[in-house]
């Protein structure tokens, strides 16, 4: 029972050379205010570093912010690295400037939901809470 009552843990991540961090920080703070335990990676993270953080920190959710157009390269790479380590129970979310046309490819790669510009923070929190798989 102890384990079920622990706070949900979320890793907010920036991948690659994308320095646009306003959205990531706002989302990180919204998770914190909603009672999540939040780890924010900061910018300039390689997929390998983020995969390791997901495992080390034993998070329930990884929320990736992408505004520099590398989402189709870097997000599937991260998910692949997690799969290689046998991690398949982490909820993967993406947000930022991601064209509608790319959403299907991200979903196919294992992203549960994509939150575009103007997304409601409450909606992000609600979706996360509903979809996290608790061990």
């Amino acid at each position, binding site marked *: 029972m102890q384990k079920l009552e622990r706070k949900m843990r979320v890793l907010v991540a920036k991948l690659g050379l994308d320095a646009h961090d306003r959205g990531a920080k706002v989302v990180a703070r919204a998770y914190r205010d909603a009672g999540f335990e939040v780890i924010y990676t900061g910018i300039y993270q390689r997929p390998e570093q983020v995969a390791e953080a997901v495992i080390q920190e034993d998070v329930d959710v990884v929320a990736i912010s992408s505004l*520099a157009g590398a989402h189709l390269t870097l997000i599937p790479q991260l998910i692949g690295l997690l799969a290689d380590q046998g991690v398949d129970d982490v909820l993967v979310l993406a947000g930022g400037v991601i064209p509608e046309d790319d959403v299907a490819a991200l979903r196919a790669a294992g992203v549960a939901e994509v939150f575009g510009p*103007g997304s409601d923070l409450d909606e992000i929190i609600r979706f996360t809470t509903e979809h996290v798989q608790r061990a």
Partner: protein
Amino acid sequence: MPNDERKARFAGVSDREVRRIYRPEDIQGFSYDRDLGEPGEYPYTRGVQKTMYRGKFWTMRQFAGFGTAEQTNQRFKYLLAQGQTGLSTAFDMPTLLGYDSDHPYANGEVGKLGVAIDSLKDFEILFDGIPLDQVSTSMTINPPAAIALAMYLAVAEQQGVAWDKVAGTIQNDILKDYIAQKTYIYPPTPSLRVITDVMAFTASHVPKWNTISISGYHIREAGATAVQELAFTLADGMQYVEAAVAAGMDVDEFAPRLSFFFDVHNDFFEEIAKFRAARRIWAKLMREKYGAKNPRSWMLRTHAQTAGVSLTAQQPKNNIVRTTLQALAAVLGGTQSLHTNSFDEALALPTEDAVTVALRTQQIIAEESGAASVVDPLAGSYYVEHLTNKLEEETFAYFDRIAAQGGVVKAIEKNFFQQEIADSAYRFQKRMMNGDYRVVGVNAYADPNEKLDTRLLKLDPEVQRRQIERTRQVRATRDAKRAADALFELRRASGTSENLMPYILDCVRAYCTEGEISGVWRELWGEYREESVY
């Protein structure tokens, strides 16, 4: 609360509460001569030139860059053909961070947010058919700014254009990168050294070049309020002045080539007041605090860009209207040059059609609205003068807080600016969520059945492969010894206090890549790392 008003509190995008009416007592003690002066005269509140847009319009300068140098060259030529009067270059993330396109970290990012540049070869293509004595060019790049300037000067040499005929701006503002934009590479001390080297070199060799564009744009876009943008930017400006003076330059030797870059956001009157306050504060600082004697050193000349963060992905055509209002505020605020965002930019890089509307927006304001016929037409408005005074007061209060932290660099290390900006960004998001700040198409008048019908720019997936091929070709065919010698000399000089610009120029002329040159400094100076706060 007066019960005949729509709400209890009226506040714009910066969350500054405004009253129903402004009256003479709100600008008590106002002195025309002291607080405004004539246009073109100290303290320049009314503008830096006597005639302003009656002399010539502001420079219409659309920021452009994507894919390869060929594609961006075509976009440049298109914009010039449509009546644009200056160029502005957007580089991709690997270029901004000093990585060549074949570096593993560049994978997936080549040509995405701007044009991919690795060597002089790319610059030759980028400015092919564009005579560099006929245009002025702005380049938004920071740690590798000296390299981009060297490439530009090398292209001028090839075109037979003398450097004293070359005009433009490099952003070169590393402090706002630590604060907000985050495209930093090296720690502050060596970064400031390269910046002062550029200032000294251009002062004697490229007299029409703006050596730095001290930028509030990114600070604002990251979430700052208008006064935070103003205060942090001008504080950065003072830091550069102090660094150049400490490096042995006379203030009047470099200050006339300092330029600024501000955001122009939604709150129409606050933005106009911000530009006016910026000029008055800078003039006072330069004359009173730094003892500049040359009036050109007192003048704050600025570029402006409409607010990218104000664009909505929802109902994107509404962005044309937002941008128009913002552009008008920049013009009424007296900007020297202007970029207007395209309506599709919350979704992707702009298409040619969208860019054309954005440029036409400026042309309509210039030619049709009458706003360009009278200098500083809002002067004397109780509201605008009150706001101008308030912004100045609040800016000086921030200067005191920054000084109390031990100055700009110390304040960066303590995350002072970063925390202030993150707090403002979060506060704004909360206001949007609770409906206190309404955005049309997003939390007001939203259309739940909206389907995107905007055609977006599609980037050619072959760009990365082709760019890598070209760069490998350059490395394979250049004079290998000349390139190696140039890099060796740069490394040697970087360990001394010699001006680095001549060495960078030699590297560039020898077709050393941007990644190789940046690599020398990465090794010598290490990389800056921040601890993120939110």
